[in-house]
Each structure stands twice: as structure tokens, then as C-alpha cells.
């Protein structure tokens, strides 16, 4: 099935704004905003701005309604049982801190939290903080040579004291997609909760949190073609009802006195203060845009680009790909190291070719340690990418290697 990339690009304002070659391959760091999301953001901020949840005048009521509709759209995209299971905040990092903090009281000294070696720091550090506060320990699922969770070795790290398993749904470095069913089954054997970091997976088609069987799911609007500054945390309703709040402030309370405060029911209990209203409305619009696409076609398109890139890289003897070399169970995220050329220099040189790549540790230092590299360059695909993007990368890389290696 072929994809009309020009038609997709027409829905992303950034492309019209570029006057030089623009091969944007840094989608894992941030996606481009779709027109629908940009419109929702701008319309709210410049023609309909009012605070939500408290005002009764027309503008305030409209903002409150729009906010609820955005929540519903995001909930539908994630497959939540009800909109109120979705908590809105300022990003995936915030969402992961929220769930870590809210689950902390369930941890006793000696309990374990299981993450993995390929997690983003945002799904490691919050758990380390919580573990330190509660006297719990953090363990990590090892990673295979292919850059996948090594679930065959789960026994080594999952134990009777494991209370929480928190792993990514897809790696922001290797692109590997997690076998959630197997993890869920394993977590069940010890009664552990399963938290998924969906920051990378959510931009690649509808999520079904109930089919996945997880207990919580985090994602970030700016990677989902929404605006910067919003994110969502889904939590299974019955679990959510029991969780304590994270931030304190306006909108999350039932009753405040100087001595004592009681809290509102979810989702409000978890949404202190004025939310990032514009970015949330944009996230709602982006979720609707994402839900309306043909993901069979788009996923195929992204994987064909991945294949083209992987085979091009395979022809460069100095290049080592960190991640699966096949196309099964992976997304279009490809990290690679170039012998003799540092990732920053690769990315800097490629900029001259209009190619936007990310270089560094990608907030995944344990994974860099696992593969004993200091940094890698990374290309990551979105529906608006095409073969010209891949070819520009490969061409620029060949020239860079000639010049600097």
C-alpha cells in the first residue's frame, strides 16, 4: 500500500515554512505539529482564552467544554474505558513522575521496582527517587544484542518482592517494541503493577490500553503531532480511585482549611492548578488526527523507510546499528554509531544536507553503557517522511565519513 506523502505534508505547516532542503528525521525527540493541532492551539489562545473548570461565562464554559472534549479524544485514542481515567499534565516525564509518586506508598523497604536497561531516563530516575524514599530497590531487565528486552532472562530480575514493572512500550533508541503480553503475564505471577512508557509508541497509531493489559500508560503530546507542553497519563479506573495526589494546589481539592485538606475525585485530584489548556486542546486535536489515519498503510510506509535506511547503513563498514536489524516488532527509530566520528559531528555535518538527526545518549545512558558507546546518531520516522529523506541521510553520511573518519 503506498502513501501519499505530499497529502500528509500538506497537513503539517512546517513544510511550507522551509526554504531549504528539510529532511526532518528527529521525530523521536519531537514530532512536527499537525495543522489541526496548531489551529486548536491558536484559536483557543487568541480568540477563546478563559480558564477552565471554574467560570460560568460563555468563554469559560466553552473552554471547559473543549477541555473535556480533548480529554475524551485522548481517552478514545488510548482505548481508555472512560475519559476520567486520563489525567492531563505537561508531558510524559511529568506523567511518569506522577505515577511513580502516587504508587510510592505501596512500596515497603526491600520491595523492588523493575525497569529495563533500555529505558529513557524519564522512566528510570523517578523510580530511583521513589525507591530511595521508600527503601525499595530498582532492578533492570537486561537487553539483548539486538537492543530488545531480554524477556528470557526475566526470571533473573523479577522476584516475589517486585511490586511495579515500569518499561517502555517502544525504545526511543533501538525502536524495539515491547512484548507486553509476556510482561503482563510475568508481572501477574508476582502481583506486580505494569506501567508502560508510551512516549515513543503513541505517535504510531491507536493504543489499546485494555488489550495491552497494563495498569498505567504515559504519553507526550509533542511527539504525537500536538504542541509542546502537554501529556497524558492513563490509569486503570479502579486503581486510579485509590491513588493519592501528586501536586497540591487549586482545582484538585474538595475542601481546604489551614489544618487539613480533602481531595477531589479523579481526574481533578491529579490536576493541580491551571492546566496547559492550549496544549491540551491541541493534543485532543492531534489525537483525533491520529485516530483518523490509516495506520496499516502508515505503519507499512514507516517500516519501508526503516528498511531502506537499514540496508543503506549496512553498506557502510564504519557504521554499527544499535538495535534490531530486521523489521519485526520494531518502530522506525534507528540509532547508529560511526567508528571514528562522534555522533555530534555526524549530526552537525548532516545539517548541511538539510538532514535533522539527533546525536547523543538520547537520555538512555544505561543503554549506551550496555552497548559500550558514548553516543549514537539517531534517525526516527513519521508519516510525512519519504525516501528522499533517507537518501539525503545516506548521502550526507557517506560524505561525512569521507571527510572526518
Amino acid at each position, binding site marked *: 500500500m503506498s502513501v501519499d506523502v505530499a497529502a500528509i505534508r500538506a497537513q503539517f505547516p512546517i513544510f511550507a515554512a522551509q526554504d531549504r532542503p528539510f529532511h526532518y528525521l528527529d521525530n523521536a525527540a519531537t514530532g512536527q505539529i499537525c495543522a489541526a493541532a496548531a489551529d486548536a492551539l491558536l484559536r483557543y489562545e487568541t480568540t477563546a482564552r478563559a480558564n477552565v473548570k471554574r467560570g*460560568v461565562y460563555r468563554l469559560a464554559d466553552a473552554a471547559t467544554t473543549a477541555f473535556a472534549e480533548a480529554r475524551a479524544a485522548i481517552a478514545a485514542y488510548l482505548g481508555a474505558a472512560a475519559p476520567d481515567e486520563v489525567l492531563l499534565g505537561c508531558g510524559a516525564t511529568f506523567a511518569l513522575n506522577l505515577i511513580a509518586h502516587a504508587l510510592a506508598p505501596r512500596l515497603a523497604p526491600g520491595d523492588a521496582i523493575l525497569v529495563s536497561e533500555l529505558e529513557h531516563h524519564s522512566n528510570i530516575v523517578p523510580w530511583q527517587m521513589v525507591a530511595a524514599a521508600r527503601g525499595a530497590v530498582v532492578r533492570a531487565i537486561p537487553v539483548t544484542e539486538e537492543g530488545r528486552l531480554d524477556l528470557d532472562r526475566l526470571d533473573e530480575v523479577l522476584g516475589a518482592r517486585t511490586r511495579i514493572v515500569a518499561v517502555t512500550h517502544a525504545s526511543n533508541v533501538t525502536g524495539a517494541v515491547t512484548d507486553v503480553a509476556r510482561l503482563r503475564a510475568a508481572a501477574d505471577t508476582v502481583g506486580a503493577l505494569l506501567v508502560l512508557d508510551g512516549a515513543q509508541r503513541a505517535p504510531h497509531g491507536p493504543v489499546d490500553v485494555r488489550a495491552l493489559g497494563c495498569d498505567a500508560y504515559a504519553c507526550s503530546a509533542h511527539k504525537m503531532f500536538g504542541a509542546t507542553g502537554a501529556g497524558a497519563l492513563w490509569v486503570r479506573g479502579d486503581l486510579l480511585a485509590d491513588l493519592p495526589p501528586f501536586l497540591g494546589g487549586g482545582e484538585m481539592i474538595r475542601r481546604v482549611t489551614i489544618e487539613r485538606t480533602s481531595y*477531589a475525585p479523579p481526574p481533578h485530584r491529579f490536576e493541580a492548578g491551571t492546566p496547559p489548556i492550549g496544549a491540551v486542546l491541541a493534543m485532543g486535536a492531534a489525537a483525533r488526527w491520529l485516530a483518523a489515519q490509516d495506520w496499516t498503510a502508515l505503519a507499512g510506509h514507516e517500516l519501508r523507510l526503516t528498511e531502506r535506511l537499514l540496508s543503506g547503513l549496512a553498506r557502510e563498514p564504519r557504521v554499527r546499528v544499535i538495535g534490531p536489524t530486521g523489521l519485526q516488532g520494531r518502530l522506525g527509530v534507528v540509532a547508529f554509531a560511526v567508528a571514528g566520528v562522534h555522533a555530534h559531528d555526524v549530526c552537525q555535518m548532516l545539517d548541511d544536507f538539510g538532514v535533522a538527526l539527533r546525536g547523543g545518549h538520547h537520555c538512555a545512558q544505561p543503554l549506551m553503557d550496555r552497548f559500550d558507546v558514548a553516543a549514537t546518531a539517531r534517525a526516527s520516522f513519521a508519516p510525512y517522511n519519504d525516501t528522499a529523506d533517507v537518501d539525503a541521510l545516506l548521502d550526507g553520511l557517506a560524505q561525512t565519513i569521507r571527510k572526518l573518519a
Partner: protein
Amino acid sequence: MSAAMYNEAIVTAARDGRHARRLPAPDRTVTCDNPLCGDRVTLDLTLADGRIAEVGHKVRGCLLTEAAAAALAARIGGTAAAEAATLLSQLRRYLAGDGPPPWPELAMFEPVRAVRSRHECVLLPFEALAEAARLPADGETA
């Protein structure tokens, strides 16, 4: 127009003070806060054979909440406690634009349907009722 929201039926209902008092010996008492605005409804009930006998309410809230509490109190006597949850969900659906109100006189809230931020004002007394119905006998919440 907001003025439509303050139609004669609503204003009259809000001024209906017949049940606007605490009961001396309620079987159940529930207080519900609207967490977003701090308004509060306290509902006292007596029960007989699983049916609601007497009702008293104390409202610290707007005209809509007062009208809803009065309308509830005026009609609820004799209703099976078990029906409270259905009543609440039908009223919620009505306000959301879906279907008729559970009782004809609650159609006075028609102009409120368009103003989402006021739905909770109308629902609050019915939420208190539903919560009271779920309580064990002699239950009390604060």
C-alpha cells in the same frame, strides 16, 4: 441567554422552602461538596421499607442547586431508595443532551443543558441522594 436559565419555574422552585430544613432524626445523612466551587448540599432522609419517607435539605449554593434540591425533595417521597442511582444518571444524561428528564418538572432545567459548567449545580442534590441510597442504614458521611 443566561436570563433564560432563571425562568420562573426555577426561581419559584428555589424559593420553595418546604423541605429546606434538617430532619430531627434522619436514617441517613449525606453532605456533598462541589469540589470545583465549594458549594455544598446536605440531605437528611428517613426510610420506610426501603422507600424514602421524609427528606430535608440544607443548601449552600446557587439558585440552580436550590431549585434542584427543592424539586428533589418535593417529589422523592415514596420512591424506592434503590432508584436513586438511575435518577442521577438519567438526569446527567438529560443535561448532556440525551433523552428526557427523569421527572417532567425537571425540564425547567432545559436552558442549563447548553452551559456545561452549571450541570454540576443541578446534579449535586441528586448525587447526595445517590450516595445516601448506597449507605448502610444509619450511615453518615461528612
